[in-house]
């Protein structure tokens, strides 16, 4: 009873305040929701920070939610419940490009504006916009950087998450395509971790045991990067060069400590900002950009403290 009364009073006050004497820019109190790919991941936390900042700037309310595992069967009930909550617009990072078509189509059919952030479905026709990093280009950049680091010869390992995730698939594709141009580098079979750092650790130590001449590792996301770093530390290995995708706080630490040699950083903050912008444009009936690619940067120990690189560093909290 008290919660409801307080909320009602609060809304009444805000409405009164908004109406009285404001030559307001927009009285758009649109309600937006951000459905993260997985809650708690620094990449998505940073995205939420950007989204929240933009939401405040545009005067819309933003709700942030997500499953606690990268799992389509966990995300489906989240999507369904968000649809039931009837927001005006939703930015979503689907955990699977096919399995979640039905619930997201239902969301769009219910009149909610849907924007894909980071990952997307195979079918993007009903989305307002799809905003992602050029993941394929990121993979290419990673391959080039790694090739240089290992002297353009030796075997390399790709530690991936799961097949069927549009972003990581594109990164691996870009990496493999670039590596085809380096005949002296052998790419070992790709390994999958289901987004579990412990699995990444075990895989790293096992591959090291099987291939003592391993020269480089490419970890396709934050969780994998963490696991690979732990694995290398456990094996006391300082020879293997690691390139990881994403620059979470732990990865920056590892970069500075020399455990990881390069980080391909995305701009999740920028993705969050763009997501809110596009959704609000759609709600206002204005034209949107169907595909937006946000920028990437290759971080090394040398440039990680540069001012223009700061936006690429992911945060664990928005402070």
């Amino acid at each position, binding site marked *: 009873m008290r919660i409801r009364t307080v909320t009602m009073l609060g809304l009444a006050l805000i409405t009164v305040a908004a109406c009285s004497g404001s030559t307001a820019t927009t009285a758009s109190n649109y309600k937006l929701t951000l459905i993260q790919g997985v809650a708690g991941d620094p990449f998505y936390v940073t995205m939420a920070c950007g989204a929240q900042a933009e939401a405040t700037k545009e005067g819309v309310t933003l709700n942030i939610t997500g499953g606690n595992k990268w799992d389509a069967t966990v995300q*489906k009930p989240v999507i*369904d419940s968000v649809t039931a*909550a009837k927001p005006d617009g939703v930015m979503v990072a689907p955990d699977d490009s096919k399995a979640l078509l*039905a*619930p997201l189509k239902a969301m769009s059919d*219910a009149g909610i504006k849907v924007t894909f952030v980071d990952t997307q479905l195979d079918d993007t026709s009903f989305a307002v916009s799809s905003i992602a990093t050029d993941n394929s280009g990121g993979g290419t950049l990673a391959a080039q950087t790694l090739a240089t680091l290992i002297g353009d010869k030796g075997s390399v390992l790709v530690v991936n998450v799961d097949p069927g995730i549009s972003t990581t698939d594109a990164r691996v594709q870009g990496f493999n395509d670039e590596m085809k141009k380096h005949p002296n580098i052998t790419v070992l079979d790709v390994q999958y971790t289901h987004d579990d750092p412990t699995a990444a650790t075990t895989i790293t130590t096992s591959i090291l045991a099987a291939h003592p001449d391993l020269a480089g590792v490419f970890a396709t996301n934050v969780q994998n990067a963490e696991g690979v770093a732990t694995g290398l530390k456990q094996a006391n290995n300082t020879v293997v060069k690691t390139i990881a995708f994403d620059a979470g706080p732990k990865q920056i630490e590892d970069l500075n400590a020399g455990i990881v040699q390069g980080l391909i950083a995305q701009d999740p903050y920028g993705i969050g900002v763009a997501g809110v912008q596009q959704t609000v444009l759609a709600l206002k009936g204005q034209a949107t950009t169907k595909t937006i690619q946000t920028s990437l940067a290759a971080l090394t120990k040398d440039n990680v403290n540069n001012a223009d690189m700061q936006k690429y560093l992911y945060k664990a909290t928005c402070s």
Partner: protein
Amino acid sequence: MTAVQPTRGQSIRSAVAVRLSPVVARWNAFAQTRGGSVVARMFSTNAAWILLLLAFLMLLFNYLAPGKFLTEFNVRTMATNVSVLLVIAVGETFVMATGGIDLSVGYVLLFSGVTSAQVMNWGGRDSTNYGWDIVLLGFIVALGSGFAWGVLNGLIVAKAKVPALIATLGTLGMSWGLAEILSNGQDLRYLPSIMGDMGASRIIDKIPLVVIVAAIVAVIGSIILSLTRFGRYTLAIGSNQEAARRAGINVDRHLIKVYAMSGTLAGFAAFMNLAIFTTTTISGHANDNLQAIAAVVIGGTSLVGGVATIAGTTIGICIPMVLFSGFTILGLQSFWRDVAVGAVLILAVYTDQLRRRRRERH
């Protein structure tokens, strides 16, 4: 000898008891009658109490999020999203009624889904346009895979006398590993499109087919458990395995049947899962076993067996989903959902224990 002074609490309780005694007397009189005793027995079961809890939660969320929680859409999607788990939980109820446990269900589901999808796509062909004969084949393969793992579980538990917790933990790992090997760690994403249509279809345009199917499975399971000899033997074995043996019941064979049932239902659920998600979702279902067990326990099944109802399990399945949906609609942080579900589980088991202890004192 001086009389002991009653404590404050005691005097309050006795004052309340005195006030309520005419009510209690009326209730006792009612409970002696034919109809009254049925009602009284209903309320002595846990199923009645958690049904009240479920109703309370639904009303609470409706109050906090009017027009959003108790909508046709949300009720429909909540029901859809528990249908796969309910089928698994029916099998788990039978297993736990015998005093056992089946931890392998989630991964047997994955394995069965993989084999089913691969058979339907035999030869690497894209099965999108295949017809009902292939779908039926896939269905049989899913059931058969689940059945095989169930029989294996039953043999290990009944014949090799390995404790069920360990036995099914082992088959959990084996089925998961084999599923990964068979699928090469990759989701199979091509299934006959009619399956996806089936997964999304609705009867009279309102009730999803998968919900009806899950409900039918639950009803059949309930009938078997309460009205057939198979059900009675299941409960007897859980209640006192030695007594069942001495009464001439072939306990080993019955246990194998019960685990086989659980495995087959996991295979059935796998097929439903394929229809709903149109992929094999091999990165998922890690917690299906614990969720099923929680539902069974919340529903009033004793952890040591002997007491079990499918009705209770069904309600037990709904409570975490209602919490999940309500929390998400209210915009509460996702991790609080897990806290709430854990708390409800403990609360449910605690009240059941209280009830049991009070019963034994009479």
